[in-house]
């Protein structure tokens, strides 16, 4: 029983560790941390109050209509904090080949960047990088995980 409890605690610690890693932060949802604990203009602020990522369809890099509002909120937020610089990380799911997915991730990051720039954010504040299929956010091998992994994540530098 003790061993079982230890395993559960270890698993919980592991999950916490993941959530602390800013590039692995789970997408913004309801019920973020209490206001006052979050520094305005920080990655935590972006995640909790704006949404740090957009998702893509399989082998596509166009911004889906349901994802566009996230980028529009990001653009407004970036204009509110003009000193903030960001890197957009493009990713792909595991159902592709490594080299092509590197290029696809780059194209996705670029598509997100284009929306921010069209919304008035200076391109000089935005870098892009692709990790292809090599840094999944969800570790399962199923459609649900793949949908989470086809993403462009905006990360405060």
């Amino acid at each position, binding site marked *: 029983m003790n061993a079982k409890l230890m395993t559960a605690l270890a698993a919980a610690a592991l999950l916490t560790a993941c959530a602390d890693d800013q590039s692995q932060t789970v997408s913004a949802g309801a019920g973020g941390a209490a206001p006052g604990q979050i520094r305005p203009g920080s990655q935590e602020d972006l995640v909790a109050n704006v949404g740090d990522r957009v998702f893509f369809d399989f082998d596509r890099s166009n911004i889906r209509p349901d994802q566009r509002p996230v980028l529009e909120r990001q653009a407004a937020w970036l204009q509110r904090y003009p000193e903030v610089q960001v890197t957009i990380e493009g990713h792909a799911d595991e159902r592709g*080949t490594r*080299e092509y997915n*590197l*290029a696809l991730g780059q194209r996705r990051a670029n598509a997100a960047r284009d929306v921010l720039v069209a919304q008035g954010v200076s391109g000089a504040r935005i870098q892009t990088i692709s990790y292809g299929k*090599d840094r999944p956010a969800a*570790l399962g091998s199923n459609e649900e995980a793949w949908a989470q992994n086809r993403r462009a994540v905006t990360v405060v530098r």
Partner: protein
Amino acid sequence: MRTDLRFPTLTRRRAALGAGAALAAPGIAAWPLPAARAQQPAAQGGGAAGAVINIETARTNPIPIAIPDMAGATPDAQRIGRDIARVIQNNLRNSGLFRPIEREAFIQTPEAAAATPRFQDWRVIGAQALTTGRVEAAGERLRVEFRLWDVLPEQQLQGTAFTAPLQNWRRIAHLISDVIYERLLGEKGYFDTRVVYVSETGPRDRRTRRLAIMDQDGENHRFLTDGAFAALTPRFHPNSDRVAFMAYQARGEPRVVLLDLGTGRTEVLGSFPGMTLSPRFSPDGRSVVLSAARGGVANIYVVDLASRRERQLTSGGALDVSPCYSPDGTQIVFNSDRGGDQQLYVMDADGGNVRRISFGRGRYATPVWSPRGDLIAFTRFGTGSFAIGVMRPDGSGERILSEGWAMEGPTFAPNGRVLMFYRETPARDARGTGYSARLASIDIAGFNERQIMTPTDATDPAWSPLLS
């Protein structure tokens, strides 16, 4: 005599190593030995006289070969002689084209065979070919005498003496394996080669990816990078002394980097503004073809290594990646989504005359041209599973060799007869439990798939040319 023990003729083939061949390895030399004793060829037995052994026939009827331990006068020499024989046995067995006979069946002792083979003793256990040898170990020097015999006509096919530093005994075993392969099958072998690949450790969302190098049989494993930065897609220079790969540096986008295996020095290749990926050396070793991505497109460039001049070969809004030269350097096969999804295209080396070659179901990726020039290997997916296959350079004759949940990244052995690739196992749960990535090799006829043992998960293998 049972029909499956009939011996087809071993074709008389040119000796595999010329006189006093200086091998491109530190301190290894080889020269021919005179025939151990002149003798009249015995009368042909069996009924298959005239049938010629080649790779095609060996696939269905692996050549039975006896590889006794090499003899030695001292315990050290005997141990090395045993180890060399084991490496040769493993190489030949793993090729799928030879059937090394179990040592328990041997009648004549290795020592006696090294002096004078008693062919009747080897014929009766079904050996078609026999190797004998003698090892002398004096200090740090090693001398190995090796002979290959055709058992039925009782003839020496090859005799070679090697000298080398003691620590290179494995190289000698691989060289001997290549001699056997070439003399008996009529084509160059692939045993004196290495594989560079990406070693992967840690949880899948935060993996450490290091370059590692090993002999083709998995021995002499060592890491080339320390994991401080992620390294992907290594490829050998035709001289095997340099590796081009993609590196995530501390700042900025990932770039194609050249690594000198002798000095360990690295340098970023080219002055491209964005990410560079999927490098391959040209067959003459003078340039690197790669993909440069920027602004949502990826185009293929060639970088001349002497002048560092960059020349753009493709243009447009597509993702053009994974270029690979034909062995004569006149054409380049690559992967592009210009037609809507990933397919294979061939163009002239100057970028002209582009034509699509893949037309089957699904998507095609990671094309590599066989060193023989006759085939292009690829990954096919998008139909639920992944597969490794080959097709002719005009796109005809497509054959799937292996299929599974996920696999990709084929690389040819230098003789074009074996592919290595990596195969992944899916995660069983949301924490990624059960995921793994492993190297595998397979004969291009689609049989003899084998996992290559590596200390960690492994991806992106690249097979070196023959080292000597």
